[in-house]
C-alpha cells in the first residue's frame, strides 16, 4: 500500500515536472520581446519627412495664437474683447498661459531641427543643404523665442536622449551669438560643394538654396539691428552687411503657408473663439492716412466701418482681423523683404556717418514692398502722397515697420527697443506699464526649477532692452 502510494507520487511528480518544463518552454515563446516594438511608430524616418512638421509648427506656433496674438494685443494691433484675451489686454499673462508655446517650440520645432542637423551628417547620406535649411529655421526660432522670453536654454538643451533632463539657460547675449554663428554656418552649408541627399519636404522654399541663403542673411540682419542698444554702431554695420545679401524682392519672403485643409491659426482662433478685435491704435493710424492696407488688415464691422477697440475696452462690436492675417490660407510671416528694407533704412539713418538719402530710399522701398505685399497692388499714388519724399526719421521708420509687421512678433521687439510707436496704457491695466517680456512657463518652475531664472516678472527687461 505504502509502496503503491509512493509510486503514485513519483509518477505524479514526473507528470508535473514534464508539464512545467513544457509550460516554461512555451512561455519563452509566449513572452516575445519583439512584441514591445511599437508597430505604429517607426524607429527611424528620412529627413524629408521630418522637415514639414517642423516648418508647420514654426508657422503655427511662433506666429500663431500664443505668441503673436498676445503680443499684438499689447502692441495694440489687436484688442482682447472677451475671456482670456480680455485678461491679456489688461497685461495679465501667467506662467500657466505660456506652457503650450514653450513646449511646442522646444519639442516640435527645435528638437526635430536638431535631429535633422545630426542626420545630415550621417555617413553616406551627408546633406549640408538639409543642415543649412534646419539651421536657418533654428536661428529663426531662437530669435523669436529669446526676444519674447529673454534668457532661454539652447547650448545645453535638447539633450533628453543623453540624460540631460534639466538644461541650463543661456543668456540672451549667448543666444544672439549662437544665432549669428549658426547662420554663418548655415550659409556655408547651403553653398557647400558636395552634397549627397538633396533637400526634400520643404514647404517654405521648395528646396531653393539661394532663397534659404537670403533668408539666413535677412534673419542675421534682423538680430544685428536688435542689438543696437548694446553694440551701437556695430549693430548697424553688421546689419547692413547682411542686408546686402538678404532678400531682393517680395518673392523671396520667408513664409509658412496654410491651406484650406490646414488653416491659419489666427483664422481658426477667430472661427472658434473670436475673442479679439482690431485695436483702435492700429486702425486709427491707418485711417489717418487712408492707408490702402487697412481693408486687408481689418474686416468691416457690422455697420460697414473700420473701427478698432480701444485698448482694454472690450469692444466686441469693433472690426475683426481681415483677410491678410486671418483668412484660412493666410501665411505665417517669418520675415519679409519689406522688413529687411526697414532694417536697412534704420541702419543707414542711425549709423555714424550714415547716408540719409540711402536711408530715405530704403524706407520708401520698404513701404512700397509692404503695400504691394499686403494689397497685391503698387498703390503708387498713395505712396507718393504719403510716404515718398517725406523726410525719414527713426519714428517714421518704426511707425511704418509697425504697420508692416502686423501679425508678427517684430513690432513688439521694435517697440521695446525703440519706444516707437508711442502707446498708451490699456484701460484696466493691472501693471503700470506694457509688459516687456513673457513669463517663463509654469513647467520650467515645476521641472527645471534649479535653472530657470527666478526673475520672472512681465516688467523685467530682456538683455538688448536693458
Amino acid at each position, binding site marked *: 500500500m505504502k509502496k503503491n502510494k509512493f509510486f503514485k507520487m513519483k509518477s505524479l511528480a514526473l507528470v508535473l515536472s514534464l508539464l512545467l518544463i513544457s509550460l516554461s518552454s512555451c512561455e519563452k515563446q509566449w513572452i516575445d520581446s519583439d512584441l514591445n516594438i511599437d508597430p505604429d511608430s517607426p524607429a527611424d524616418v528620412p529627413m524629408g519627412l521630418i522637415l514639414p512638421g517642423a516648418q508647420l509648427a514654426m508657422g503655427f506656433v511662433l506666429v500663431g495664437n500664443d505668441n503673436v496674438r498676445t503680443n499684438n494685443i499689447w502692441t495694440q494691433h489687436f484688442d482682447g474683447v472677451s475671456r482670456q484675451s480680455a485678461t491679456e489686454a489688461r497685461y495679465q499673462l501667467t506662467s500657466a*498661459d505660456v506652457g503650450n508655446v514653450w513646449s511646442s517650440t522646444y*519639442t*516640435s520645432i527645435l528638437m526635430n531641427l536638431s535631429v535633422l542637423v545630426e542626420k545630415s551628417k550621417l555617413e553616406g547620406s551627408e546633406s549640408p543643404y538639409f543642415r543649412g535649411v534646419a539651421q536657418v529655421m533654428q536661428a529663426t526660432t531662437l530669435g523669436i523665442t529669446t526676444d519674447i522670453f529673454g534668457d532661454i536654454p539652447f547650448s545645453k538643451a535638447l539633450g533628453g536622449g543623453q540624460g540631460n533632463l534639466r538644461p541650463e539657460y543661456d543668456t540672451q547675449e549667448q543666444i544672439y551669438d549662437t544665432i549669428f554663428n549658426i547662420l554663418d554656418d548655415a550659409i556655408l552649408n547651403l553653398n557647400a560643394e558636395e552634397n549627397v541627399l538633396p533637400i526634400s519636404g520643404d514647404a517654405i522654399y521648395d528646396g531653393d538654396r539661394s532663397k534659404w541663403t537670403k533668408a539666413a542673411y535677412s534673419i542675421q540682419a534682423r538680430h544685428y539691428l536688435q542689438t543696437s542698444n548694446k553694440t551701437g554702431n556695430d549693430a548697424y554695420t553688421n546689419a547692413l552687411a547682411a542686408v546686402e545679401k538678404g532678400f531682393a524682392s517680395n518673392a523671396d519672403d520667408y513664409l509658412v503657408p496654410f491651406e484650406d485643409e490646414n488653416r491659419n491659426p489666427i483664422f481658426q482662433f477667430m472661427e472658434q473663439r473670436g475673442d479679439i478685435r482690431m485695436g483702435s491704435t492700429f486702425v486709427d493710424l491707418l485711417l489717418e492716412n487712408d492707408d490702402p492696407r487697412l481693408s486687408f488688415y481689418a474686416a468691416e464691422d457690422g455697420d460697414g466701418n473700420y473701427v478698432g477697440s480701444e485698448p482694454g475696452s472690450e469692444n466686441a462690436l469693433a472690426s475683426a482681423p481681415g483677410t491678410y492675417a486671418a483668412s484660412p490660407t493666410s501665411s505665417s510671416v517669418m520675415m519679409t523683404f519689406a522688413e529687411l528694407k526697414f532694417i536697412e533704412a534704420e541702419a543707414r539713418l542711425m549709423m555714424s556717418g550714415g547716408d540719409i538719402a540711402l536711408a530715405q530710399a530704403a524706407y520708401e522701398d520698404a513701404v512700397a514692398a509692404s503695400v504691394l505685399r499686403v494689397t497685391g497692388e503698387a498703390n503708387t499714388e498713395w505712396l507718393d502722397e504719403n510716404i515718398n519724399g517725406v523726410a525719414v526719421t527713426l519714428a517714421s521708420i518704426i511707425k511704418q515697420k509697425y504697420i508692416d509687421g502686423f501679425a508678427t512678433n517684430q513690432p513688439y521687439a521694435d517697440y521695446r527697443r525703440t519706444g516707437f510707436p508711442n502707446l498708451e496704457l490699456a484701460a484696466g491695466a493691472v501693471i503700470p506699464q506694457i509688459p516687456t517680456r513673457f513669463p517663463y512657463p509654469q513647467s520650467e518652475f515645476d521641472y527645471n526649477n534649479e535653472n530657470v531664472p527666478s526673475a520672472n516678472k512681465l516688467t523685467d527687461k530682456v538683455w538688448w532692452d536693458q
Partner: protein
Amino acid sequence: MKKRLHGFLTLFLALVVQLSFAQVSSVTGTVTDEDGMSVPGVNVIVKGTNTGAQTDFDGKYSVQAASGDVLVFSYVGFLTQQRVVGTNKTIDVTLAVDAAQLDEVVVTAIGISRSEKELGYNVQTVSAEEIGNKPNADIVNSLAGETSGVEIVSSSGSAGAATFITIRGSASITGNNQPLFIINGMPVASGGGSSGIGGVQTSSRSIDINPDDIATMSVLKGGAATALYGVRAANGAIIITTKTGKNLTERKMEFHSSVGFDVVSQLPELQTKFSQGQDGEWRSGGQYSYGPRISDLEYDGDTDYKWDPNGRLVPKGTGAGIPAQAYDPYEFFQTGITTNNRFNIANGNDQGSYFFSISNFDQEGIIPNDTFERTTLRLNATTKISEKITFGADMAYTSSQANQIQKGSNTSGIMLGLLRTPPTFDNSAGYEFADGTQRNYRNDTGYDNPYWVANNIAFQDDIDRLTGSVNLTADVTDWFNISYNGGVDWYTRRYTDQFKIDSKGNPTGYYAESQSYNTIFNSDLLLNFKHEFTDDFSAKLTVGNNLYSTFSKGLFGDATGLEIPDFYQLSNSSNNTTSSYESEFRTAAVFGDLSFAFKEMLFLGFTGRNDWSTTMPEQNQSAFYPSASLSFVFTQLEALRGNSFLTFGKLRASAARTANIAQPYNTSSPFVAVSGDNNVGDGWTGPNGGVNFPYQGLAGFKLSNGLGNPNLSHENQETWEVGADLRFFNNRLGLDLTYFENKNTDLLMNVPISDASGYGSVFLNAASMETTGIEISLRATPLRTEDFEWSFITNFTKIDNIVTGLAEGVDNVFLGGFVVPQVRAVVGQQYRSIFGNDWYRDDSGNVLINDDPTDNYRDGYPMADNREMVPIGNFNPDWTANITNNITFKNVSLSFLFDIKSGGMMYNGTAFAMNNLGTAKRTEHREVTYTPEGTIDFDATPAENIVVMDGVYGRVDADGNPVSTGVTNVTPVVQDEDWFRKGAGSNFSGGPSVAAMEPADWVRLRNVTLSYDFPKIVENVDNLQLYFTGRNLWIDTPYTGIDPETNLGGATNSQGMDYFNNPGTKTYLVGAKVSF
C-alpha cells in the same frame, strides 16, 4: 445585426436542448431555526448528487429524491443536518446555529473558493438581492454605497455615462487606478470612459454586463487578496460570479421588467432680473447678461429682427408693449424613460446544468436624443464527461448603441450653451432658420444653441462584444484535481461623431468614424492538492500557470469641410485624415497557493506568483510577488466556545507584495506621425481644427514627445492589513474592522521634464505613494419577529492617499484639467490635488483686501495672486459612510441606502464662468450707485447688495510681494459688473481658481426600494414581486452647482472638476419579477 442575433440564439438553444433530466418523486418540508422562524435560502441537496433546491421565503422546499436518499440541509451560520428519506415525503427540519460555521464560501483570486473564516484579509461580497432592483445600466453604479473601501464617482447623469471606481485609494500616479474585473474566472475589459474636458461622456466597458446575470460580486481589496493575480490586480479586483443552474431541481424561468423615469436633479441657480447686454445696455447678440433690468424693458415687435420672434428689447414705453421676461432655460430637460426587460431560464442536475438569459435595456435620458440601448445574451452550461471530469462553457454577448450629447468645455456643450444664455433669450423659440443657419443668443456666433446641439450633433457609439470561456475540472483523486479555464473577451467598437455645418466648434461641419478591435486572451491551469495530516491539521496546495494577452487595433478617419449638408460620409470632403493604431502585450505567470488549517481555528496561507511581461525590457521581464496571511478564529478556543454573547470572533493579518507593469512601448523613443495634437497644440484651436498631415501634400513625422526607457522595472506595492470579524448574539450583530497600509514605490509614470530637453516627459520608475485606511462594517438585526424584521448594514471608510515622492526634482505632475486649474499629484499632499491660483494672502493665510488707492487693484476687494499655481483643494473625501436599512413586514420589504461623503472640494468652474457672463444667481445683487466722491451711495444702493469681503487689509508692493496690515477689512463694497465681469470675481477676468472651490460633501438617499412579494396565487408561479425603486431622490450638499457626484473628464484620475458638466438625475422606477 438581427441575422447575427438569430445565429447566436440558434446556437444557444441547440445547447439547451442537448441537456436532459431524470424524474424522481418530490419530497417537501419547511426549514425553521431554533426560534421557530422560517429560514429562506437553505440549500437542500441529495447527498452524492448535484440535485437540490433552496428553501423559499417561507422556508419551504421541494426536492426530487427517492427513498433511502440522504438530504443535506446547509445554510450559512447553521449546523448542517442530514435526513434520510423514508416513506414520509414531508421532512421538516430545525437548524441550529453553528458558531464555527458563521461564514460564507467566498470566491477569491483565480476562482479559488475559500470559507470566509480562513481568510486573512478583508473581502466583501455583494449578492444579487442587493443589486437586483437598482436602476443602473452600469453594474459599478450599483456597487456604490454597498461596501467599505470602495469609491465610486459617476461622471454625469447622461445615458450610458462612465463611472469611476477605485478600491482603497489609488496605487498609480498617471496609470490605471481602477480594479480588475473577473467574470467567472475570465479577466475582462472594464475601463474606458475617460473623455477630456470637452466632447461626450462615453461609457466604461463594465456597462456591457447585464446586472441581472450576477449572482455575487466579491470585492478583493488588499494586496494579499489579489496577490495571486500578480501584475494585474494592484488596484484590487471585482470577482463576478454569474447565476447558474447548479443545485436546481426543476426548470426555473424568471421574467423581470421595469420602467424608470429620470428627471434632472440639482441645477445651478440663475439670475432672472437682468437682460442680455453689458454696462446696463441691451445688446443684440451680446455675450453677457449685464443689461438693463428686465422689468424696465419691452419688445419692439419688429418681425424683421430674426433673433427673437418679439423683436428687439427696448426701454419700456418705447416699443410694442410686449413686456420682456426671464425664460427658464431648464425647460430644455425632459423626463427620461428607461425600460429594462430581462428573462432567464435555468436548470441543473447531477449530470450538468445550464443558465440562459437575455435582456434589453433601453434608455432615453433627460437630454433629448441622449440614448443608450443594450441587449445581452448569456449561456453558462456544464456537463459531466465522466464521473470525474466536468466540462463547462460560458458565453456572453452584448450589443450596445449609444447616442451621446456634447458636454463640458466645448462650444457645443449642452450646459455651456444653456447656462450662458441670458435670461431674456428663449433658446426654445427655434434653433434653426430656413437657410440652415443657427439661431442662438450670440446671433450665430459663440456657442451652439443646446436644442441645435441635441438635434444636429451626434456621437454614436456601437459595441459588439462576445466573451467566451471553457472550463474543465478533473477530480483525479480525492486529494488532487486539475482545473482549467481559458477564454477570450473580444469586442469591436465603432463610433461616428458628426457635427452639422454651422456648429460653432466646427463651422464647416465634421464627421469622424472609428473602428477598433480588442481582444483579451486568458488561460489558467490549476493543480489543486489537499492533504489531512491529522484530524486537526490539514493543508491545501494550488499550483498554476497563467497566460494572458491583449491586442487591439483601430482605424480612425475624419473629415472637415463637408460639401453636402447633412450627409455624413468620409468622402463628403476633400479634407480628411486617417490614422491607425495597434497595441499588444502578453504576460505569463506561474503561481502557488499553500494553506494550512489547524483545528478550524488557525489558518495560515502563503501565495507566490512570478510574472513575465513583454512590456518590460528583457532584463527586467520577470518579477516575483509573495503574500502571507493568517486567520485566528479565537472563539474556537475551548474557553470561548459556545459563548452566546460573542458567537464568533476572528483576528486576521496579512501582508503582500504586488505591483504593476508598464504599458506597451515605453522602452524606446521612436518617431510618430505628426498630428495637430502632438505638434502644435496651442490650447485655442482644435480639437477638430488644428493642423493635420498631409500638409502641402507632404507626410510628416516627428520625434516622440515621450522619452522611452530601456531600464524599466516592475512597480512595487507592499501592503499589509490587520482586522477583526466579531459576531454577537447568534449573529444578530456583526462588526468587522480593518486597518491597512499600502506602500507603493517605483511607480511607473511619464515624468514630465523640462521641454527644453527636447522631450515633454520620460518614462521612469519614479513615484511613491502611501495609503492608509480604516474600514468598518457593522451589521445588525435589531428586530426580528415572525412577521417583521429590521436589519441594517453600515460601512465606514477613511482613506489617506498621500503622494510621498515623484521623480527627482519634480514635486507635482499634471493629471488632467485646464491650463488653470488642473488636477495634479503633488508630493506631500493627498493624491489628485486641484492646483490653481490663490488670492494674495498674508503669512497666516488671511486673504488680503486691497487698501492702496494708488495701485491698479480696486480697494475693498481681494487680489488674485497669479505668481504661481498652488494646491487649492482636493476632491477626496475625509471619510465616507453608508447605511442600508432593510425592513420586512410579511411580504413587504423596504430597503433604503443613505450614502455620506464628508469632505472633499470640487472646482465649480461653471459658477465661476457664470459670474463673468452675469447669469449666476449671485450676480443679481449687482446694482450700485456711487457718490461724486466715488464712495458707495448708501441711500441709492440697495442695502442687500452691500457686502464686506472676508480678509485683512493689505496690498501688493512694487516687487509683487504681499504686504499685510493685519487689520480686519470693514470696507463695504458691491459685487458688481466690474467685479464679476471685469474683475477677479470670475475666471475670464483674472479671478483665481480658489474662488471657485466649493465643498462637495453630501448625504444622499442613494437608493430606496419598496417591494411586495405576492402570496402564491397561481400554481405554476413560484414568485411574483412588484417593486418601486428611487435613486438619488434626496441629496443634501453645500455644493451650488449640479449634483456633485460628477466629473468633467469622466472615468479618469483627475477627479473633482465641474465645468458645464451635464447634470445628474433622480430616478423613479417600477418593476415586476415573476418566476415559474
